[in-house]
C-alpha cells in the first residue's frame, strides 16, 4: 500500500504539471468525441476521435515532441471548424468566441518555453506547424471519402433501401458492361483529339503572337477570356451557337449550302463537345506555350540565325526542341483535365444523341447519382483513378525534377 502510494507520488511529482493538464484536457476532448460519435453514430468521427486520443495520449506520456504538435494541430482544427460553423451559422458567435479564447489560451500556453523544453521542442519543429494543417485538411477530406469509396465498391447500395456486401460483383459488372466500354472508347477519342488539337493550335497561336505586335497585351487578354468562363454556362451557351436552324454558325453555313447537323448527328455532336473544349482550353495552351517561347533566350535564336534562315528549319531544329519541356507540361495538364471532362457534355449534349457523347465521368455520375447505383459507380470512379495514376506515373520523374 505505502509503496504504491509512493510510486504514484513520484510519478505525479516528476511529471510536469503541464503534461498532466494537457493529458486531462485531451482525455476530456477524446471522451466527448467518443460520446458524440456514439450518439450520432458518426463512425468515422468516432474512429478518428479514439485514434487521436490514443496516439496523442501515448505521446504525451512519453513527452514526445510530436505530441505537442498533434495537440496544436487538433486545436487548429477546432478553430477552423468553429470558423466554418460560424460561416454556416450553426454555431452562435458567442460560442465561437469562447472556443477561440480557450483554444487560443491553450496554444499560447503550449508556446511557453518551459513546455517546449519538456517536450524537447526545437526551433526546427516549427516546420511541422506550417505543414501539418494543410496535410491534415487534405487527409481528412480526401482520405476518408476515399476509404469510404473503397468500402462502397464492395457493396450493393441503393440509398435508403439496400446496403449489402456483394464481394466483387461490382467489379465483374465493370468488365462486362458494354456501356462503360463505349464510354471509355469515346473518352479516349475525345482526349486524343482535343489534346492534340489544343496543343497544336496553342503552338501555332503562340508562334503567331510571339513577335513585336502592338497591343499584344490586349489581344492576350481577349484570348484569355474563355479560360475562366464557367464551363456549365459555356455548355449551354454553345447550344444556342450550334443551333442548327439558323443559329449563328449554321446561319453562315446554310447560305453556303452546308447545313451541319451539329448536335443531331452522333459524330458531329462529339465534334461539338470537342470544339467547345478546344475553344475553352486552347487559350491555356497558347498562354503557356507563349510564356515558354518568350522565356527562350533570344541569343540562342541569334546564334542559330547565323546558320539558318528564319522559318521552318529554325523552328524545327531550335525552337521545338527547346520548347519540349513546356510542351510536356502542357500535355500532362491537359491530359489530366481532359480525363475529367464532365461539365460541357453534361450540359451541351447530355451524352447524346443516344450515348454518342456519354463520356466517362458523365456515365459515372448518372450511374451513381441519378440511378443511385452507388457501389458500381464507385468502382467506375476508382477505375478512372487508376488510369489517371498511370498517366501521372508516366510523368512522375519530370514532375519531381520540376518540384525538387
Amino acid at each position, binding site marked *: 500500500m505505502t509503496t504504491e502510494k509512493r510510486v504514484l507520488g513520484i510519478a505525479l511529482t516528476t511529471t510536469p504539471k503541464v503534461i498532466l493538464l494537457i493529458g486531462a484536457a485531451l482525455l476530456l476532448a477524446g471522451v466527448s468525441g467518443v460520446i458524440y460519435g456514439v450518439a450520432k453514430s458518426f463512425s468515422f468521427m468516432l474512429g478518428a476521435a479514439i485514434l487521436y486520443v490514443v496516439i496523442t495520449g501515448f505521446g504525451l506520456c512519453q513527452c514526445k515532441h510530436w505530441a505537442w504538435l498533434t495537440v496544436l494541430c487538433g486545436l487548429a482544427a477546432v478553430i477552423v471548424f468553429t470558423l466554418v460553423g460560424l460561416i454556416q451559422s450553426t454555431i452562435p458567435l458567442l460560442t465561437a468566441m469562447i472556443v477561440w479564447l480557450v483554444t487560443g489560451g491553450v496554444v499560447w500556453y503550449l508556446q511557453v518555453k518551459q513546455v517546449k523544453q519538456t517536450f524537447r521542442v526545437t526551433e526546427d519543429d516549427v516546420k511541422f506547424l506550417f505543414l501539418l494543417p494543410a496535410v491534415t485538411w487534405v487527409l481528412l477530406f480526401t482520405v476518408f471519402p476515399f476509404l469510404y469509396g473503397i468500402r462502397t465498391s464492395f457493396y450493393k447500395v*441503393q440509398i435508403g433501401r439496400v446496403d449489402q456486401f456483394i464481394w466483387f460483383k461490382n467489379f465483374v459488372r465493370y468488365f462486362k458492361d458494354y456501356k462503360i466500354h463505349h464510354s471509355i472508347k469515346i473518352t479516349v477519342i475525345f482526349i486524343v483529339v482535343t489534346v492534340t488539337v489544343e496543343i497544336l493550335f496553342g503552338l501555332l497561336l503562340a508562334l503567331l503572337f510571339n513577335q513585336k505586335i502592338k497591343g499584344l497585351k490586349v489581344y492576350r487578354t481577349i484570348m484569355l477570356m474563355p479560360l475562366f468562363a464557367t464551363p456549365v454556362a459555356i455548355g449551354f451557351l454553345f447550344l444556342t451557337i450550334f443551333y442548327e436552324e439558323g443559329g449563328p454558325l449554321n446561319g453562315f453555313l446554310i447560305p453556303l449550302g452546308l447545313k451541319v447537323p451539329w*448536335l*443531331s448527328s452522333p459524330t458531329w455532336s462529339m465534334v461539338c463537345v470537342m470544339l467547345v473544349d478546344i475553344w475553352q482550353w486552347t487559350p491555356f495552351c497558347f498562354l503557356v506555350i507563349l510564356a515558354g517561347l518568350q522565356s527562350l533566350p533570344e541569343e540562342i535564336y541569334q546564334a542559330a540565325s547565323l546558320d539558318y534562315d528564319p522559318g521552318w528549319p529554325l523552328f524545327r531544329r531550335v525552337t521545338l526542341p527547346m520548347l519540349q519541356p513546356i510542351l510536356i507540361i502542357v500535355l500532362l495538364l491537359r491530359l489530366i483535365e481532359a480525363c475529367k471532362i464532365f461539365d460541357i457534355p453534361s450540359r451541351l*449534349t*447530355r451524352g*447524346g*444523341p*443516344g450515348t*454518342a457523347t456519354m463520356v466517362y465521368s458523365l456515365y459515372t455520375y448518372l450511374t451513381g447519382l441519378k440511378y*443511385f447505383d452507388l457501389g458500381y459507380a464507385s468502382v467506375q470512379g476508382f477505375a478512372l483513378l487508376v488510369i489517371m495514376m498511370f498517366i501521372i506515373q508516366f510523368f512522375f520523374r519530370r514532375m519531381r525534377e520540376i518540384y525538387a
Partner: protein
Amino acid sequence: DVTVTSASGDVITFTPEEIGTIAAEGQQPFKGKEITITVNTGGPKGGISGPLFEWRDAWEKLTGAKLNIVEIPIAEQFQKVMVDLQTNAQQYDACMPAASWYGDLVTGGFAFSPEEYYADPRFPKWHREYLPPSLVNLHTWQGKWYGVPNDSDGQVLYFRKDVLTDPEWQKEFKAAVGYDLPVPPKTWDQVYDIANFFNNKDWDRDGEVEKDSGIALHFQVHNQGMYHFVSLSAAFTVLPGEKVDQCHNVYWFDPTDMTPLVNEPGHVKALEFLMKLAKTGPDAQISWDLGTAWDYFLRGDAVFTYSWGDVGALVQDEARSKIKGKLGAAVLPGSYEVYDRCQKQFVKMEQPNVVGNTTGGSWHGVILNSAKEKGVQEVIYHLLAFHATPKISMWNVTRGWTGVDPGWKLHFLKEQGGMSTVEDYVAQNWHKDDVTDYTQAYHDNFFAPVMQSYIRIPGGEEFWYKLDEHLSEAMSGQVSAKEALDRTAQDWNDINDRLGKEEQLKYYQESIGYKP
C-alpha cells in the same frame, strides 16, 4: 370577395367560398411560416414554374406565409428530391413531381395524403369530379389521393388545318398517294403519307422548300424525347380487352412476371415506324428539345406535330406563333394492326386502334411527409389548392407559357360535356377557330375507351431514362430499332433485379389494377 393580382398584372376575383375562409378573412394565419417547394427550373416565365412565381406575391399576401421556390433542372429534380427524402434532410416541403414518381414517392412512404383537407372550407375549393378517370388514376394510389391536380399531360396530334383543307393540295395529294386526304388523319400510316407528301414541298408558298417540313418532333436525349415513342406505340401495342391481363391493356411489363414488353414486335414496329416518320421532318430533330420543336411548328414550318397541350395555347401567342387560327387538333391516330402477345402475331382490327394516353409528367403538387413534421402541411395544401381552383386553372390553361395543359371537365366546352365556352377562350385572346378542335382532341384523349397504362413503380424515372437513351441511339442511327429496344429491355430487367423483382411486380400489379 377576394381579389388577387398576378405578377404580370392580371386580376382575378374569388368568392369567399372559392378561396376558402383562411384567405377570405384576411387573418393571415400562416404568418411567419415558410414553405419550400421544388419545381423544374423554368424561371418566372417557365413552364410549370411560371405560375408559382406569377402568383407568389398574391398568395403570400393572402396567407402571410413565405414561399421558397427551389428550381431544379428537370434532369435532376427527381434525384434531388429523392436524396432529400432518403437522407431525411427535410429541405423540401413539397414538390411538383411527374406522376411517374409515385412509384418512389408513395411506396417509399414519403408522400402525405391531403385527403382530410379536401372538403375543409378553410381552403380554396377545387373539384375532383372535374378530372377524367384516367387523370384521377395519376393522382391517387390505391384509391387514396396524394396529388393536388395542376397540369394534365397527354399527347394529341396537331396539324395545319389551313394546309390540309386547301383544295389544291387535296387534289395533288389524291393524285400522288391515291386516296382522299383525310382531315384529321385516322391512322398513323395516313399521317406518314401526308407528312411525307408535304415534306420539302413549298406548301406555305413562300418560294422555297427550306423550312417546309412534314412533321416536327423532338428527340434530344434526356429531354423527354421518349414520350413521342410511348404515345405513338400505344396504338401498335395496347390490345383492347375486357380487363387487364397478360395480353390486354398492358404496355410496360408482363403483369405476371415483369418481363419487359418493350422489345416485342409491336414496340419494334412502332419504333421503326417512328424512325420512318421522323424522316419527314428536319434532321435536326434528333437534337431538339420540345421547345425547339414547338417553335418550329409555331413558326409555321411543319404540317404536323404531336405533343402536349402547350402547343395549342402557345399558338395563340402571336409573339411566338404565326399560325394562330390555322390550328387543327385531334386525338392521336390509331393503327389497324396491333400486336397480340398471346398469339405472338399482329392482329387486324376493324377500326383503327385508338388509345388514349396520359404521356408526360402531369406535373402537380405533392405534399411531403416532412412538411407534416414541420407542421406546414396546411400551408402547402393551401398553396396547391389555390393553384387548382377553377379560376387559376383556367387562367393557366389558356396561357401557353405556363405549361399547364387542359384535361378537366372545366376546360372542355359545354357541347363536349365540359363547362367552358368558346368565348371563355376567346376572352383570353384565343382565335375562335382553334378552340373547338383543341378541346375536343383532349376530351377524346382523356376519355378514350382504351387507355395506355402509366408507369408508376419504383425506379420509374430510371425506366424512362434508359428507354430514352436507347431510343436516341436508334433515332440517331447508331443502332437498329430492335437492338435499341433489346438494350432497353435488358436495362429494365437489370433495374428490376436491382430493386427486387418481387416487390416491383407487386407494385406494378397494383398500379395498373391487375388482379390475378
